[in-house]
């Protein structure tokens, strides 16, 4: 698997060289969300009894940042390589489609986790440290990053131009993350929107991840993990199928 490690290393080096853009900027963005929303809502909203709004918001923001950055890493790396043409550098060597998948996946997961850790670290100034269920946290963080990393690979392979990728991001990823209970509990929604939220896989990721932090959630975190696991298996199978067939990469 040494071809894999070279591609993995290259993907890490790629985002690490522009760390301000790929890690610092998303952390600052999350911090701004935290400052604005908790300033406006802290005094008025208590989602779960005994949990301050800021403490409620932090896990949602950490998860949202991880999701967006894991997606962004694999998708933008692929589209850039395709647009520039240097994708041939990884298509010419004897890399298997599995190695290709795991390398892009692994690097995107790592970027997601680093950004998540960064967001969490800066929020510690505003919300007290608490982590009743660290194993759930790890499981949800990994699965969530893995799902979005794989979705990013699919998007990066499918998109032929930057604006197609932007459309994918704006019309799919962004609504899914915003309509998932980052900023509110879905129990505060009208029944119809509650039902809609429950078919959004991102909702389960946020809800279960929040359980790890505050010990309370809208649904059973075990069910959420099952949903997340199923999503990951499905999206991975699709990605591997596309890669194996050479879809849009080997004409």
């Amino acid at each position, binding site marked *: 698997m040494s071809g894999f490690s070279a591609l993995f*290393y290259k993907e890490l080096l*790629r985002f690490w060289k522009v760390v301000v853009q790929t890690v610092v900027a998303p952390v600052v963005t999350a911090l701004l969300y935290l400052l604005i929303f908790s300033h406006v809502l802290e005094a008025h909203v208590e989602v779960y009894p005994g949990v301050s709004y800021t403490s409620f918001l932090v896990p949602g923001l950490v998860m949202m940042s991880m999701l967006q950055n894991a997606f962004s890493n694999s998708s933008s790396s692929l589209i850039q*390589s395709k647009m*520039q*043409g240097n994708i*041939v*550098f990884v298509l*010419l*060597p004897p890399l298997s489609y599995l190695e290709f998948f795991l390398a892009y996946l692994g690097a995107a997961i790592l970027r997601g986790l680093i950004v998540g850790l960064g967001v969490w670290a800066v929020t510690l100034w505003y919300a007290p440290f608490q982590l009743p269920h660290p194993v759930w946290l790890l499981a949800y963080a990994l699965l969530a990053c893995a799902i979005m990393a794989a979705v990013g690979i699919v998007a990066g392979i499918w998109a032929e131009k930057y604006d197609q990728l932007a459309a994918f991001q704006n019309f799919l990823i962004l609504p899914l993350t915003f309509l998932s209970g980052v900023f509110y509990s879905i129990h505060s929604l009208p029944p119809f929107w509650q039902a809609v939220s429950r078919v959004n896989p991102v909702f389960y990721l946020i809800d279960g991840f929040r359980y790890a932090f505050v010990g309370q959630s809208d649904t059973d975190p075990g069910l959420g993990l099952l949903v997340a696991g199923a999503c990951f298996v499905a999206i991975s199978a699709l990605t591997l199928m596309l890669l194996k067939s050479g879809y849009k990469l080997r004409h």
Partner: protein
Amino acid sequence: MSQATPAIHVDDLRKRFRTTQALDGVSLDILPGEFFGLLGPNGAGKTTLISILAGLTRADAGQATIMGHDVVRDYRQARRALGVVPQELVYDPFFNVRETLRIQSGYFGLKHNDGWIDEIMHHLDLAQHADKNTQSLSGGMKRRLLVAQALVHKPPVIVLDEPTAGVDVDLRRSLWEFISRLNREGHTILLTTHYLEEAEALCGRIAMLKSGRVVACDTTRNLLQLTNEHCAQLRLDRDDVPVAWQDRLLRDAEGSWRINFSEYLELETLLADLRVTGVRVTEMHLQEPDLEDVFTDIMKRT
């Protein structure tokens, strides 16, 4: 068996892109150690053929092997045996020259390749640019980096797709010296180029491609003999050429006379007739047929 295994074997390859039949049944065998030229006008299918060998494109029908390894079924061995310099001037702007070469080595499973990387950088005059970001390299430098990348795994078969397009004369010469050396050391070279004099000077064998078909394939020497159209350009002190030659001699704008001939005997006869007539030759230039003539001829005829 190993004696008979061609470095590149291509059998009845076909590839269609929507409305274009890019390859229409191409068969070729290139033996180990050959310096082989693939010529053809733009759109003839050269890059498509190379892309199929490299696994970048999948053929609709037919078979291709590199050192006996099928490019689809045994793609790992086939790609390990093949180094490709792509036609497009591509680079990854995130990395410098040395990083690019180390990463490329890694893709082939080579961890400790710095000795060889230093050697190729030296031969391609890249050593002093090792720490430069690829984005800041000149076009010629980027091209040499592509050559270096194709060589990191010491492939027995090297394919260069128009490697000298847009490269200045000095660089072209040093590039060819290096490639010729690799060829002498046993590497098989497949080259496409627009510069026919390069192909004539370097390639032992040449195939010509037109609209996805091989229209000629032979040794360079044999191809050059296909056209024995020599041309002589004469200046004469008087204009009254012998009557028998008036149809053959063509007057050009500067007042010189041109004659196309295939046998030197014809030229001898002309000179003798001129002497008999009392016309003196004041200047004479001979133009030997070159690959350009053969190429033009074949492309017109087929």
